[in-house]
């Protein structure tokens, strides 16, 4: 069966599986992101830990620091998904076998898995190093999942835009931070609530709406972002 006869999700899954297989062989993206996350965690713990701030003052600070670590760790690795295709010259082949929406869906799925790996390392380590108490684990999991979906989709779409631009690593940070700010701010608010034991409905609704809007926009504009 040729790739073009497969359905949208089968082809997207094939793109995701290809990236996962490549990553399984080289482990460069995962290794470098996790190393960056560990370094950032150690730095934050070293910088904030000695101050011994009271618990109520720490709630907002800890949530903000956690999301800053997650955002910058993700920013070091997630844009690689499409940039690597251009650097290795495989972008043209990928364009020939799959339309932009399929490529972005597959790459976003792989980036989401990568984000989950970052979060699985960062969140428990952060909690241990900074003695961060989480009263509602279910609420925290919901925030991390919703935040991860948005972060993966927006990062993948933007990496498609900057893949063939000059200075793409710096450019990715320049274009991604303002677009991800509406995701990071409610994620931080919902994380503060989760650490205090409550399920913050309003910020979580904003995250769901943001994820939905970003998914639709990325799907509709994928062709323009990735076509030759």
């Amino acid at each position, binding site marked *: 069966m040729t790739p073009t006869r497969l359905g949208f999700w089968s082809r997207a899954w094939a793109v995701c599986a290809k990236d996962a297989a490549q990553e399984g062989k080289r482990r460069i993206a995962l290794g470098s992101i996790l190393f960056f996350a560990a370094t950032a965690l150690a730095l934050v713990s070293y910088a904030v830990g000695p101050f011994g701030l009271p618990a109520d003052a720490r709630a907002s600070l800890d949530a903000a620091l956690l999301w800053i670590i997650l955002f910058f760790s993700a920013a070091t690795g997630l844009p690689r998904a499409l940039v690597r295709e251009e650097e290795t010259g495989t972008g043209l082949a990928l364009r020939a076998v799959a339309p932009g929406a399929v490529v972005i869906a597959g790459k976003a799925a792989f980036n989401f898995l990568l984000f989950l790996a970052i979060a699985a390392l960062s969140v428990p380590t952060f909690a241990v190093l900074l003695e961060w108490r989480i009263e509602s684990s279910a609420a925290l999991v919901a925030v991390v999942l919703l935040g991860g979906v948005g972060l993966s989709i927006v990062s993948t779409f933007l990496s498609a835009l900057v893949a063939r631009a*000059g200075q793409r690593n710096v450019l990715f940070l*320049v274009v991604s*931070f303002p677009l991800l700010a509406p995701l990071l701010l*409610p994620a931080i608010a919902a994380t503060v609530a989760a650490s205090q034991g409550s399920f913050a409905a309003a910020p979580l609704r*904003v995250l769901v709406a943001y994820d939905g809007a970003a998914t639709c926009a990325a799907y509709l504009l994928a062709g323009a972002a990735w076509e030759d």
Partner: protein
Amino acid sequence: MKLLKLLLLPYMAAVIAGAFLWVEPAEGFLGESSRIVFFHVPCAWTAALAFLVAAGYSLAYLLSRNARFDSVAHAAVRLGLLFAALTLVTGSLFARIMWGSFWNWDPRESSYLLLLFLYGAYLFLRAAVDDPERRARIAAAYALFSAVLMPFLVFVVPRVTRSLHPQTVINPQGKILMDTPTKTVFFAGLLGFTALFLWLLELEARGARVRQPTN
């Protein structure tokens, strides 16, 4: 457009005169600070309108691949950045009088700062791509993607976080809490700033067309 240009000067002069001479300062605000509403809100409105116009022309470009639409979208973003910067300046003046500091990290202040970064990034993105056709396509995709996520930054996030900012025109009660002279000058200002933007956009787009052969 020539008529618009000729009418704009006396019209805006009348709006400014009305803002300072006809309307009484609003209650609950220090000194004359409430008069900033006649300039600050229209600047914010015009900035948002400019970015929506940029999204509209970007969509038109992606559908037609007509370079003229791309140059209008580019001009609209540049003007949007100008009006967003004016929004921040006028907002900071108000903040200094009312809250004692030019910058307070209020969610609404921050949202317009992030909006400046968001569309400043559009200019960086354009500058980083050499091929004109690819530059126009990527810029159009970014402008449309930003237009979808911009409402979260400007309208949604500031409403789910605590803010010092006075109640906005679009408030939860769905009522415009202004007396008749204030309302008249306010909406006249909105109209004037919108017309000013359209005139500037026409000028910028015409300039871009003249410059195009040498690009």
